[in-house]
């Protein structure tokens, strides 16, 4: 499934992200996910007659943070009404930014070095959620529809890319990088499955070398990075095959059917709405002053690209798999563990490997709200391993204990009996075993290296696993 040879795709993404504010965009209702339907509502977010919106300062700040992180110009802006009838939109219009968005221009550099321009990133309100009860689960043929307005009025930022994306993999990489940035700025939790980050893809194709853009289709319902990549690939294939066989792409909105693995028509251009945008008279223009803008910009945390560069710098000459580890460690936001461990004297390769594998695995299975591994604890475990106080196996076990119980890693190690074996007692054990197994020792001395593992096993048995295998082998070699 891929684009036909001789064609290229042109893709632009529109990403909607819910902002992690305490309250909704225009009222004081809590901005939380997963409550009982229609419990986080008030006259304002229900759009009751006579109610009026009041802009949430926190949402503006997060929107500016996103703009600053994407290198946008933060501009004086205003709100418009986007008018169309839909039952999950309480006022039957959406308050959004139109010709004067708060963030304009900007770019995102992807890990592979490619660059995708950002046209704008503007503030708007989310709609409620409709559930269609009936066979199809869609509006047509539903027995009835239920609307939950808890999400109505939740703040969104819509980030519109330039049509700079040329492959499905790049589309995925863009969305992944954007998600890392949104999480890093604290603007969003970036959870695509819960809909807190939603992606629409505008896809068109053209013959290689053609300068004009083809007719585009907008694909909706892309709720995972995998869906995004598959849908873009599929749509580019569909369009290129259509064009190659003499057909014409019709501008329309298409729906990604994950199960069927294809896009299907949702509504055509003729059915497109005339949104009748006009300035929202209930809100004043939004013009953040320089001081506010500077404060938000100055408060930005280190962004993923810079954090990747930091880790790569620590490694010196990273391998391909270490580059992948760096990518995933930063995407998971675990890179401070690596840098802290390195500052404490742990080798970068060891720190990266443990964090990218064991720590990442633990964090990946952590349930929402569960205690995450704390940086200090992880650093202590890595220091102990670096110093030879813990073997690799022991270090992994202590990390697991740390995740489960928390506490002081040294106590956890002690509780497991991972007391440090001093060099003297290890030597004594080796000497005892040489005496106890003279035949095996002789064969080892004659060059049968496999016997080393036999002695390691015996040492582990004697010491209840407290010895470091490498130290045992070194001890044996010295006596050979």
């Amino acid at each position: 499934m891929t684009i036909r040879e001789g064609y290229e795709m042109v893709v632009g993404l529109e990403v909607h992200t819910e902002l992690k504010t305490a309250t909704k965009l225009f009222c004081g209702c809590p901005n939380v996910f997963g409550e009982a339907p229609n419990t986080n509502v008030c006259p304002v977010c229900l759009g009751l007659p006579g109610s009026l919106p009041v802009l949430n300062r926190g949402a503006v700040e997060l929107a500016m943070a996103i703009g600053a992180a994407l290198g946008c110009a933060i501009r004086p802006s205003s709100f418009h009404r986007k008018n169309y009838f839909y039952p999950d939109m309480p006022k039957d219009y959406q308050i959004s930014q139109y010709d004067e968005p708060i963030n304009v221009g900007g770019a995102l550099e992807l890990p592979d070095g490619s660059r995708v321009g950002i046209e704008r990133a503007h503030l708007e309100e989310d709609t409620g959620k409709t559930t269609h009860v009936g066979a199809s689960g869609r509006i047509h043929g539903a027995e009835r529809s239920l609307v939950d307005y808890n999400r109505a009025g939740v703040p969104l930022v819509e980030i519109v890319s330039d049509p700079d994306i040329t492959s499905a993999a790049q589309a995925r990489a863009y969305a992944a990088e954007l998600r890392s940035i949104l999480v890093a700025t604290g603007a969003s939790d970036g959870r695509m499955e819960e809909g807190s980050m939603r992606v629409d893809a505008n896809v068109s194709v053209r013959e290689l070398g053609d300068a004009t853009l083809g007719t585009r289709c907008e694909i909706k319902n892309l709720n995972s990075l995998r869906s995004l990549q598959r849908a873009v690939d599929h749509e580019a294939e569909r369009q290129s095959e259509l064009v190659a066989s003499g057909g014409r792409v019709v501008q329309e909105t298409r729906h990604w059917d994950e199960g069927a693995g294809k896009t299907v028509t949702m509504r055509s251009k003729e059915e497109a709405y005339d949104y009748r945008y006009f300035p929202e008279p209930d809100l004043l223009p939004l013009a953040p002053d320089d001081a506010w803008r500077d404060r938000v910009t100055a408060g930005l945390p280190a962004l993923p690209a810079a954090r990747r560069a930091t880790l790569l710098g620590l490694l010196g000459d990273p391998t391909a798999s270490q580059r992948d580890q760096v990518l995933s460690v930063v995407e998971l936001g675990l890179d401070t563990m690596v840098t802290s461990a390195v500052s404490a004297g742990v080798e970068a390769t060891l720190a990266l490997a443990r964090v990218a594998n064991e720590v990442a695995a633990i964090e990946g299975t952590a349930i929402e709200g569960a205690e995450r591994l704390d940086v200090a604890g992880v650093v202590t475990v890595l220091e102990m391993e670096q110093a030879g106080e813990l073997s690799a196996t022991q270090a992994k076990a202590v990390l697991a204990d740390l995740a489960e119980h928390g506490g002081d890693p040294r106590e956890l190690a002690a509780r497991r009996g991972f007391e440090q074996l001093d060099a003297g007692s290890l030597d004594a054990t080796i000497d005892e075993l040489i005496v106890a197994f003279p035949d095996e020792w002789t064969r080892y001395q004659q060059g049968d290296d496999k016997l080393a593992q036999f002695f390691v096993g015996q040492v582990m048995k004697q010491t209840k696993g407290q010895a470091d295998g490498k130290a045992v082998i070194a001890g044996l070699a010295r006596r050979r």
Partner: protein
Amino acid sequence: MTSAIELAAAVRRGDTTATSLAEGALAAIAAGDGAINAFLHVDAEGALAAARRVDAAVANGEDPGPLAGVPVALKDNLCTRGVPTTAASRILEGWRPPYTATVVDRLVGAGAIPVGKTNLDEFAMGSSTENSAYGPTRNPRNHARVPGGSSGGSAAAVAAGMVAIGLGSDTGGSIRQPAALCGVVGFKPTYGMVSRYGLIAFASSLDQIGPLARTVADAAVCLEVIAGHDPRDSTSLREPAPSLLDALHDGVKGKTIGLVRELVDGSAPDVEAAVAASAVTLRDAGATVIEMSIPEMRLGLSAYYLIAPAEASSNLARYDGVRYGLRVDADDLTTMNVATRTKGFGDEVKRRIMLGTYALSAGYYDAYYGRAQRVRTLLSRAFAVAYGRADLLLGATAPTTAFELGAKTTDPMAMYLSDVFTIPSNLSGDPAMTVPFGSGADGLPVGVQLLGPARSERLVVAAAQVLEDAAPS
């Protein structure tokens, strides 16, 4: 008839009780409203409960506030928690808001007793209160005549003496024109002076709540109570309520008042005569009256009938049958939406929704809505120039005295022209007040209008007081 200020003073002194005033208002409504139809809903229980609270406060030695025990009427586009609020539309029949408008909270906080909800043109769209889904209101001075609109119910209730003060809303003249036609004072404050939170929106950038009262002083005290910043309304001015009562007797000595040709031209001779007489009164009181022309005012009506319907088409979209109010069931969503709105809205509301939808449509926006906004800017600039020469402007409030029921219902343009003198102040957002000043040939009241620049409420009430003191009976 006793003024609101006198009634409140009597209650605060303990000379009378809020309960007896509320009972009096309820009795007056019961006796007189059958013929007038000023009220859509009378909340006797709520009124008496509020009155008892005021009386208890007085008994405890507390001061219930400057409107202690004063019966007030609320235009039925102001939300009142648990009390039916319809905007005179079928589409909101039976709806009881879960919250109360800021202005109503403030009135009650000042001791006022809301006795009921008054009739209006549906969603405040009209100039005669004939566009109500619940029947027209009649002018208390002559039951064959309209009370004006859209705040015709509040104007009639005040004029008939059922209540001392009524609240109205003014989008293109909807406080001032009915006040003039019923012979009472009507005050549209500076846009943003009074919170719109809880006012069912018609045209958000033009709507403003204000008082109707029998005296300038009563209107002033009411505005003092309801004005001032409200954090729930982003367009509300970030300043406290103006102090007006202490400006009532400032007079107009040394002030320049511009008699604006465009605010008189086209009015009936008796109205024109009343305006001329009011100019003489102001001159006699020490003002310099100059004649002025503001030609841009002639463009106001056209701009208004694009901007107001455009905003209305969006504001009224939410009445879709999904969440509250009327729902006409149907097999699918769109049919339900259409059937509900077809049945729920009256003709004038539908006309304006269509006008506004058209004005905002792709391909027409610049020619209609965009151009109307430019006219609005032009008009505001013209006002600014005028206020460089004059402190206040003077003109007629409405072109005629109250007209007969049915006289203009078949001719929307004729009806729209009733607001030609009031619309400019809504477009500029400036304050304007109508004061009764004599009668027309038919013996019905004539109102003259004072206009001032933004935040000039103190100047406006001072001049209005001069006119009230000298008004021919």
